């Protein structure tokens, strides 16, 4: 079976700290994987190396068979990898629509002539994409769909997370990396968010998701299997119920007696 994403012996250091230590991790197409582990275990660093924000000091990452270890972030996006950020990174002064469209870069015509001169054609492309963005955000929160041109700055955290996820989904990526999507949200809000993500996944069976989370209930409910990291290494792998009772995993989270 070919993996969609495969990391082999992936290593990344920050000064004296080894954030990723010879990590092997493989993602199968169409599955939902949970990436869990105590704070500082390298989960976000893994995302950052995969998406090209940091380089790797050792090992490799391949996507759909192609080596992306040294690829720039934008090439990785063009290949079909999209993400959200742990610390919500939206452009606050811009509108909801603008923020979502930033994620749509590869499907928009970026030519100078098109944008500045062929305004009629541009208008048509705009309207198509306006509808697409609206339809997408409606899945998550119909009220936001009525406020597409409002700046994001005034919105509560849960709405911002929704918009961030839409930004990641609008380009119809093959692989979606979610970094702690439920951070800052209540239990009910988290449940709602996950239902919406599953709904999107049902509409697009071609989507593979890797989700970093601390809320174990969520992980248990929606993931097919989990990978547990500690100190940059994989210490367990398997369905949630299995890793939850793994001795090493418990030690990692709770410490050794």
């Amino acid at each position: 079976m070919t993996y969609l994403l495969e990391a082999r012996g992936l290593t990344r250091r920050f000064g004296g700290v080894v954030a990723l230590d010879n990590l092997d991790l493989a993602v199968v197409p169409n599955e939902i994987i949970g990436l869990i582990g105590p704070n500082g275990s390298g989960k976000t660093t893994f995302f950052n190396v995969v998406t090209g924000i940091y380089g790797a000091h050792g090992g490799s990452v391949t996507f759909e068979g192609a080596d992306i270890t040294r690829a720039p972030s934008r090439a990785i996006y063009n290949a079909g990898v999209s993400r959200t950020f742990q610390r919500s990174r939206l452009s606050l002064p811009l509108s909801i629509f603008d923020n979502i469209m930033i994620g749509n870069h590869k499907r928009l015509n970026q030519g100078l002539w098109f944008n500045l001169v062929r305004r009629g054609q541009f208008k048509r492309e705009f309207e198509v994409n306006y509808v697409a963005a609206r339809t997408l955000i409606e899945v998550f929160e119909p009220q936001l769909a009525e406020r597409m041109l409002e700046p994001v700055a005034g919105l509560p955290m849960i709405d911002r997370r929704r918009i961030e996820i839409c930004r990641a989904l609008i380009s119809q990526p093959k692989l979606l990396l979610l970094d702690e999507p439920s951070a800052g949200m209540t239990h009910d809000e988290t449940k709602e968010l996950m239902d919406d993500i599953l709904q999107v996944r049902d509409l697009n069976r071609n989507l593979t998701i890797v989700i970093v989370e601390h809320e174990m209930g969520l992980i248990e409910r929606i993931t097919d299997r989990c990978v547990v990291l500690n100190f940059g290494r994989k210490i367990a792998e398997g369905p949630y119920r299995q890793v939850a009772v793994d001795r090493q995993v418990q030690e990692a989270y709770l410490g050794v007696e």
Partner: protein
Amino acid sequence: MDVGLLSQYIMNGLMLGMMYTLVAVGFTLFFGVLDIIKFSHGDVLTVGAFTGLATYIGLRSVGVSSTPLLLLAVLVVSILAMAALGMLIARYLVLPLRSAPALNTLLITLMLGTVLREMVRLFYPQGANPKPFPALLPTDSINLGQFNLRLDNAMMLATGVAIIVGLRLLLNRTKLGLAIRAVAQDEETARTMGINFTAVVLITFAIGSALAAIGGVMNGLYYNEINFGMGLLLGVIGFSAAIIGGLGSIYGAILGGFLFAALQTLGAVALPFASAYKDVFAFTVVIALMAWRPTGLIQEKISERV
């Protein structure tokens, strides 16, 4: 080239390097502690120089004529005045903009630099003209074979070295220095450890501005002349020196300062027909270095958390 001329160039290069380093260290301190670029630093140097000059003129007019005393007074007054100015800048212009985009702080300090510069030009008596700066250091020189070592240059160099060493000691061996380094590393953690963030910032600005004052006086003593625009180019040079050395690192500032001076001297030697081009030469090399090593020759502090 004869040894005498060569040593002349070297001496000149060393002096320049020292002055640039003093400015560069200021930039690096501000960036290290607050992640900001204080573009008014060069102009604080100018104000320091003019404060020193005003002190001198004032004291002379009331009859003080002892040179060591005058020198001491000039230094003390300009250091204290600039330290106070630095703290005011930090308190009222920089700290309030902590939560605004970094660009705003850059812009506000740039504008402040203009305010300082223009105020000297407009309000100091005939500020638009260059002003003679008194020679307050002994002007004898020691003869070393083909080379004349001027005592005043030697003293200034020694002072510069002492200051840098002193600063390093301050940062590495004192509680204050520890506090400064802690804040530079991670503001939030430093605060939770009980460090008074505001106090550290104010003190850092005071130190940096005091260094600028010394640099300004030194500049005046070396060239025997000061003018309202002196800080502008010095500031730009000091800033680029801090960058190529690696923003946030004292060693980087020293390296950058002397590197820039060396480049300028090289340029002056290589292009004797147009001394104005030595700056173009030096800057071109520096910009090329920036392109090659954007984070500086010694690693720039990376502060962004992804």
